């Protein structure tokens, strides 16, 4: 059995959970995989931090929580501090360019930086930051086929915002692919 443990963290209002749901949905509904998503929240966390624990696997998932993170996406400094310790050696780390400073660094991670804020501003709606990140993650992780993720995006956003979000998703994917290519080239 192959199992990938993913953590996505940020602060409330960034749509962190939705990005987890899209990836989960892409995997579980459109890619023939299994996916289990749990959101961590509590009254104390209100409005501050927010995170999703996502497991993607080719077999039914038994233990539902993420313990050793294979892939970590962080959109806030707080999330960076809290979640990097659990990242496995050689794990995938995606950090947002403007919101996260990579200190202390995580030496053995496969690290990508998503300029989600900037891209979102280019697209004109700050709110699509999370969808850009999903696209970017899809590209650099290569965990789930593009089409599966794209279908999931379609099903997960309000109909009126579909175009906007698809643009955001594709942009993120594109930028992700570029970076992946760079890294692979340099490898």
């Amino acid at each position, binding site marked *: 059995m192959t199992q990938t443990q993913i953590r996505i963290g940020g*602060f409330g209002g960034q749509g962190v959970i939705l990005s987890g749901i899209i990836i989960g949905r892409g995997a579980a509904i459109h890619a023939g995989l299994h996916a289990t998503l749990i959101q961590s929240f509590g009254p104390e966390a209100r409005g*501050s931090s927010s995170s999703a624990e996502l497991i993607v696997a080719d077999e039914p998932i038994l233990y539902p929580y993420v313990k050793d993170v294979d892939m970590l996406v962080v959109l*806030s400094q*707080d999330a960076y501090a809290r979640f990097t310790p659990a990242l496995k050696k050689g794990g995938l780390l995606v950090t947002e360019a403007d919101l996260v400073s990579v200190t202390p660094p995580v030496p053995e991670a496969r690290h990508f930086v998503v300029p989600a804020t900037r891209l979102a501003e280019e697209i004109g709606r700050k709110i699509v930051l999370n969808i850009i990140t999903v696209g970017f993650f899809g590209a650099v992780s290569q965990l789930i086929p593009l089409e599966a993720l794209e279908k999931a995006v379609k099903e997960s956003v309000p109909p009126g915002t579909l175009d906007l979000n698809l643009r955001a998703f594709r942009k993120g994917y594109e930028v992700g692919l570029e970076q992946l290519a760079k890294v692979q080239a340099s490898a």
Partner: protein
Amino acid sequence: MRGVVVIHAERCKGCALCVEFCPTDVLALSSSFTTKGYHPPEIVRPEACSGCDLCGMYCPDFAIYGYRV
């Protein structure tokens, strides 16, 4: 009578109520961030403060107060 206003920025969540409801426009939101990522108020017209403590009563986060001297 003059007043003093005290800001406890680390508690501030940047709601701007103090700024808006200070009767003498002593405050403005700063462009700096707290470690939690909020913009706290800063004192822009200290001399205008009457120490009325309205900012103190408005603040939902016990992050500011005024007093008379």
